C-alpha cells in the first residue's frame, strides 16, 4: 500500500472541559476526495484549524507526506502544499478579487517581501486564470468587501488554489449558498481536484452534495470518528443514523 498523503494519529484538543477533538486517527490517500461530516459542534472546524496550524493540538501526530506538521506555523504548513478555506468566509475586504489571489500567488512565488517593484503587473495572468476557473473573471476588479456571498466562497476557493496545493481543506465550502449553486460549486471543485489530482477533505452539511461528490465519507461526533467508508455504507450505519436522528435531512 502506498504511503498516505496525510496520516492523522490520535489528535486531541480540549477547550476547558469540552473535548472538541477527542482522539481522531485516519489516513488520507493521495487523490482522494473525502467528506468529513457531523452535526454542529462535532469538532470539524477545530480539527481543520489544527491541521492548518491555527490551533495547537493537545496531543497527537499528523504526518503530511511523511513529515510531521503539527506545531508548525500556519505559513509553514501552507508552504508545504496544504491549503484551506474557512467556514466563515475569510478574504481581504479592501483588496480587489484579483489582488486577493495575487497576494497568495506572490506569497507562493516568495515575492511577498519585494519592496520596490510595483505589484500591479505581477502574477496577473495566473491569478486571472484562477478567477476564471472559479467563474469570477467578471468580478476581478471589485473589492472583496462588496462581493456577493456566493462569490466570496468562490474567491476563497481561488485563493486556496493559488499555491498549487496538494491537499485542500474546505470547511463548509458551500454554506450559506442557494441549493442550486452549492451543487455546481462542489462539482466544479471536484473537477478541478481531479484535473490536478488534488486530495480534498471537506466538511459539508448538504447531504446531496456529499453523496454526489465524495468518494469516501467520515463521520465525526463529539470529537470522535464514529464511521468511515464509502458513502452508501456510512449512510446505512446504525450509529450514524442514531447521531443524525431528528436532524431533518441531516442538515443543521
Amino acid at each position, binding site marked *: 500500500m502506498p504511503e498516505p498523503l496525510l496520516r492523522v494519529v490520535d489528535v486531541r484538543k480540549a477547550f476547558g472541559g469540552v473535548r472538541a477533538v477527542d482522539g481522531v486517527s485516519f489516513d488520507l490517500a493521495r487523490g482522494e476526495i473525502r467528506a468529513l461530516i457531523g452535526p454542529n459542534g462535532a469538532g470539524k472546524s477545530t480539527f481543520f484549524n489544527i491541521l492548518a*496550524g491555527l490551533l495547537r493540538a493537545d496531543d497527537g501526530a499528523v504526518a503530511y507526506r511523511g513529515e510531521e506538521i503539527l506545531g508548525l506555523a500556519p505559513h509553514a504548513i501552507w508552504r508545504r502544499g496544504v491549503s*484551506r478555506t474557512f467556514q466563515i468566509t475569510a478574504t*481581504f475586504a*479592501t483588496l*480587489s478579487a484579483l489582488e486577493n489571489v495575487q*497576494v497568495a500567488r506572490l506569497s507562493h512565488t516568495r515575492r511577498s517581501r*519585494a*519592496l*520596490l517593484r510595483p505589484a*500591479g503587473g505581477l502574477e496577473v495572468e495566473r491569478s486571472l486564470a484562477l478567477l476564471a476557473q472559479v467563474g469570477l473573471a467578471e468580478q476581478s476588479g471589485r473589492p472583496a468587501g462588496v462581493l456577493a456571498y456566493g462569490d466570496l466562497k468562490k474567491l476563497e476557493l481561488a485563493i486556496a488554489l493559488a499555491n498549487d496545493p496538494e491537499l485542500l481543506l474546505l470547511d463548509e465550502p458551500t454554506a450559506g449558498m442557494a441549493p442550486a449553486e452549492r451543487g455546481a460549486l462542489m462539482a466544479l471543485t471536484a473537477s478541478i481536484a481531479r484535473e490536478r489530482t488534488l486530495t480534498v477533505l471537506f466538511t459539508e452539511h448538504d447531504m446531496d452534495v456529499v453523496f454526489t461528490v465524495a468518494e469516501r465519507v467520515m463521520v465525526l461526533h463529539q470529537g470522535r470518528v464514529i464511521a468511515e467508508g464509502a458513502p452508501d455504507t456510512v449512510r446505512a450505519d446504525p450509529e450514524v443514523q442514531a447521531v443524525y436522528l431528528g436532524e431533518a435531512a441531516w442538515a443543521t
Partner: protein
Amino acid sequence: MSPSLVLIQLLSGLAHAMVLFLIASGLSLIFGVTRIVNFAHGSFYMLAAYLTYTLAATLPLGAAAFYVAVLLAAASVGLAGLGVEVALLRRVYRAPELYQLLLTFALVLVVADVVKLFWGSENLTGPAAPGLAGSVEIAGQLFPTYDLALIGLGPLVAAGLWWLFYRTRWGVLIRAATQDREMVAVLGVDQARLFTSVFVLGSFLAGLGGALQVPRQALTNVMDASIITEAFVVVVVGGMGSVPGALLAAALIGVIDAFGVLVLPRASLVVPFVVMAVVLIVRPWGLLGRPEVQQRTAGGAIVTAGTVRVPPRWLAAVLAALIAVPPFLPTFHVWVLVEILAFALFAASLHLLMGTGGMVSFGHAASFGLGAYGAALLVTWTKAPMLLAFAAAPLAAAVGAALYGYFCVRLSSIYFAMLTLAFAQIAFAIVHQWYDVTGGDNGLLGIWPAAWLAGPLAYYYLALTACGGGIALLARIGRAPFGLTLRAARDHARRAETVGINIRLHQWTAFVVAGFFGGVAGGTFAFLKGSVFPNLLAVPMSVEPLVMVLLGGVQAPAGAPVGAAIYKLLDTVATRYTEYWQLVLGAILILLVLAFPRGILGVVGDRRA
C-alpha cells in the same frame, strides 16, 4: 533611608495615587465602553482644577466654599463631557473610530487656550482645604493632613464605583459593553445613551481628580499633558476598562514614582514607562484586565474602504511647483516649506504603519527623535561632517525601530499603540535625563548644515530630495508586493497566515522601514533648526503625525503629505497672527473632522467613486 522616611514617602505616593486613580478610572471606563482614546481627558482635569480655584475664591460660603467648589467644578466638567459627546463625538461614531481621537486632540488644543485666556499663563497657587490645612505627625515626621484625607477618599470612590457597576442595571450594561460591544447592541440597549452616560461619568471623575489636586499643586498650563500620559500608563498597567485594575495600578505607579525620585533621581521619568512596557510584553491585557474577545486595531477597523489614489497628473504638477516656485519665495516661506517637507515624510512614514499596515502607533516620535539625535550626537561628539551625520539619522532610527518593534509587533490594537508610546517615552526620558551625553533639556546646539548647503534654497533642495524622495519610495513600497501583502494582513490576519505570510516578520519589516523614513525626517528637521531638544521625542510629536494622517485620509497614501501641509500651514499662520493659535487650530480641526469624517482625500475619493 530611615523607616519613617520610607513610610512618609509611601504615604505621599499613595496620596498622588488616589488622584491618579480618579483620572485613570474615568479614562479606562470611557475607553472600555466607547473605545475612544480620549486625549482630552487631561484637559478636563486641568479645567476642573482652574474652575475650583476660581469658585473657591468667589463663592460666599466661607469654609464650605472650597468643598462646594470641588463638587461644582467636577459637575461642570461632567456637563462639558456631555456637550462634547453629544455635539461632537456622536457625529463621527460611524467614521473610522480614530477620527474621534482626532476630535479629542482638537479639544486638547482648545481647552489649553481657553485656560490661558481666562486664567493667564502664570502658575497659580490654590487655596488650602479648610479644616485639612495643617500637618499631622507620623512616625516623627510631618505629613500633610489633606494628603491623608485623600488616601481615605480613594477607596471610598472605588467602593462607590464598585456599587455602581455591580449593583445597578446600568453597571451590568457597562460591564457587558466593556467585554463585548456587539453583544450590547444585540441586546437592544440604546448605545448612544450608554455612551453618553459613560462619557459624562468619566469626565466627572477626571474633573474630581483635577479639583482635588488644587490644594496639593500649583496650577499650570501644562498640567493636562503631564497627567494624561501618566493616566495612560495606569490604565494600561491596570487593564483597559478595569476599575479595580486602575486602583491597583495607580497605587503601584504612585508609589513607584515617589520612591523613584528618591532612589533613582536620574532615571525617575523612565521608570513608569519601563513598568508599562514590561506589563505589556508579559501580560498585554494588564494586571486585572481580560484579554479581548475579538482582536481589533486601536479604535476599530482603521481602513474600511479601498485605497484612494491621486491621479499622476496632479502629482506631477505638485512636484513641478515644488521645484520651480521656491526661488521666487521670501526666505521665511522657504523655511516653512522645508518644515512641511520634513513633516510630510514623517506623516507618510506613519501612514505605512497605520494606513497600509493597520498598526496605529502612538510613539512614532521615537523615529523622528532618534533620527534627529542620531545626527546631532554624531556632530557634537565626533565632529562628523554634516552629510555623514545626515545619513546616519535614518540608520539610528531604523536600528531603534528594529529593537522596540520586535516587541511591538507581537501585540495588536490598542496594546500595540500603548507599547509604542511606552518605548517613545523611554527614549524621551533617556534623552531628557542623560545630561552628560544629550545635554538634557538644554538640548544640543550648533547642528548646522555644511556651508554649501546652509542657504535656504540649497537646504530646501536637499530637503526636497531627501523627503520628497522618501515619500516617493514609501508610495512605491505601498504599491509593491510588500505593501499589498501588508494590506492583506491588515484586512484579515488569519487568512494572510494561511496563504503563507509570516505576519510578524512582515509587520516588523514595515516598522523598520517606517522608522528609517521617520529618521530621515528627523535628520532634516535637526539641521533645519540647528539644534535638537527632548521635545522631539515627546508625546505631542507622536500625536501630530497621527493627526496629519487622519486629516489627509488614512485610506489615501497621498493623504499624509496633504494632511501634513494643511496642518503645518494652519499652525504657522495661526501662531503668526494670534497668541491663541491653539484655539484657532483646534477649532479648525474640529470643523475639518466634521466636514471630512474620513479625511480630506478619503471623502474626495468617496465622492469620485
